[in-house]
């Protein structure tokens, strides 16, 4: 019984890590721009695909070049994917969101634009690569350790440690650095930020880089854990991560992080005791109850401004 519980906790930590990493990206962009970036789940998908192409290229599957050893491929794929995916995120910001922001349109239209961007990414992928699924190469030599009936893989540990490491890093950036301070300032009062000599667009681009690279990391780790990629893989996990961010309290990175893990735990625990088809029904009912109890999320506070 205890073993089963421990095993489920480990599984939930891994599963929650994906939600948490994606939820952080929603949270950052929302915090800074008050924009729900509905394309973010698809950025995660794009990240997984970029990781697929980068790693298979480095493994020597396209050109007639000798492939690199898989540990080196992994070590190169992670930064390359984060970089390239940030490029996609920043590109969306430049071509889709910034022009609307310049015109000062209602935020609703920007949110709709984000939804459209997500659909374009999904269907662009479908058109470009076809509907066949891609299977992600194995980059990590699998190691399994068993303690009683509890089994831990090195991948599981990598996922969980990455999520916590990234959160620590992000938290440091937001609370300790000047650009992090500028992000917080922008979330409070965007009018006054340029008055401090700070270009708001630079801060916004930086925010998209952070969010997209975290989604990219989630994409790599997800593809390593569940090595089948399809163009719609980001849609449902993206929606769920968004809901997780809201339940945690969107606008607070601790909230988004905790929210991701709550959703992970609820889903895994439901499946542990009920048929797996009940998973989403139960999971979202529980989240709904949390929302009713705390509408601003677990870490959220209703923002007050002083005039």
């Amino acid at each position, binding site marked *: 019984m205890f073993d089963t519980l421990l095993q489920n906790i480990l599984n939930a930590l891994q599963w929650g890590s994906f939600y948490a990493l994606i939820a952080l990206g929603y949270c950052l962009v929302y915090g800074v721009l008050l924009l729900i970036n509905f394309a973010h789940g698809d950025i995660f998908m794009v990240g997984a695909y970029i990781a697929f192409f980068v790693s298979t290229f480095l493994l020597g599957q396209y050109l007639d070049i000798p492939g690199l050893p898989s540990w080196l491929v992994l070590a190169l794929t992670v930064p390359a994917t984060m970089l390239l995916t940030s490029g996609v995120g920043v590109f969306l910001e430049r071509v889709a969101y910034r022009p609307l922001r*310049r*015109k*000062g349109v209602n935020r609703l239209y920007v949110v709709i634009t984000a939804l459209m961007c997500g659909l374009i990414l999904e269907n662009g992928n479908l058109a470009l690569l076809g509907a066949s699924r891609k299977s992600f190469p194995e980059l990590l030599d699998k190691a399994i350790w068993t303690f009683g009936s509890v089994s831990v893989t090195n991948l599981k540990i990598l996922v969980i440690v990455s999520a916590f490491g990234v959160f620590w890093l992000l938290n440091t950036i937001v609370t300790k650095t*000047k650009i992090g*301070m*500028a992000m*917080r*300032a922008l*979330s*409070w*009062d965007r*009018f*006054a930020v*340029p*008055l*401090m*000599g*700070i*270009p*708001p667009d630079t801060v916004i681009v930086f925010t998209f880089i952070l969010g997209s690279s975290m989604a990219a990391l989630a994409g790599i780790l997800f593809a390593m854990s569940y090595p089948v990629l399809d163009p719609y893989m980001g849609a449902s996990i993206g929606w769920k991560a968004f809901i997780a961010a809201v339940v945690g309290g969107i606008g607070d990175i601790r909230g988004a992080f905790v929210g991701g893990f709550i959703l992970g735990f609820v889903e895994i625990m439901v499946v542990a005791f009920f048929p797996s088809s009940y998973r989403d029904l139960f999971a979202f009912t529980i989240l709904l109850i949390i929302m009713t109890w705390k509408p601003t999320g677990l870490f959220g506070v209703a923002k*007050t*401004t*002083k*005039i």
Partner: protein
Amino acid sequence: MSTPLLSVENLHVKYGNIEALHGLSFTVHEGEIVTLIGANGAGKTTTLHSITRLPPPEAPRVTAGDIQLRGQSILKTEPQDLVRNLGVALVPEGRHIFGNLTVFENLELATYSRKDTENVARDYERIFSLFPRLAERKKQRSESLSGGEQQMLAVGRALMSKCTFLLLDEPSMGLAPLLMYDMFRTLKTLNQEGMTILLVEQNARLALQFAHRGYVMDTGQIVAQGSGVELMENPEVKKAYLGG
């Protein structure tokens, strides 16, 4: 006469489709305190926002005329460049401090683009000697400050950006009289040390006592100008803005 620090020439400005300023002209010289007074809705804040070029959509649209700083047009200057390259800082109406940051972080943020990092420590000390209350509350979230302290923070923040030209929008608003005089005394000190000040104020009596020169605005135009004393003696100004 030398080139003025700021020269606003025949400025026409629209908000949406409504023209808010109809051919406004005035100048501010280096080392001066100049005030714009006038009733609510005369266009005083619009004038300041036209100078500071806030990002769209907030920015009022200049349809004709020019705004020059040291003889160079700044109509195309990005608002952040005005602060970091040209030394112009605005203390906006309503203060707009960052309530989710601590007092110290608010000051620190204003040093974001400064290149002379070696002088920053000295400038903090200067701010804290001008406003000892801010030193006491350094680590507090700034939304917990009183209105007067927030105003000090807003001015302190502008000074941390190393401005040489300070634009103030209604600094007396919401302040108890004692704090208000304190604030103006501090501003006077800053001016004596070389800071040029453009002050927008509803409290016309206070503003005219404080300023070297003043302009009276009404519905988007300058209707009177002169030294502070001249304007205070002007019967029409007296009647309209100084309570008879």
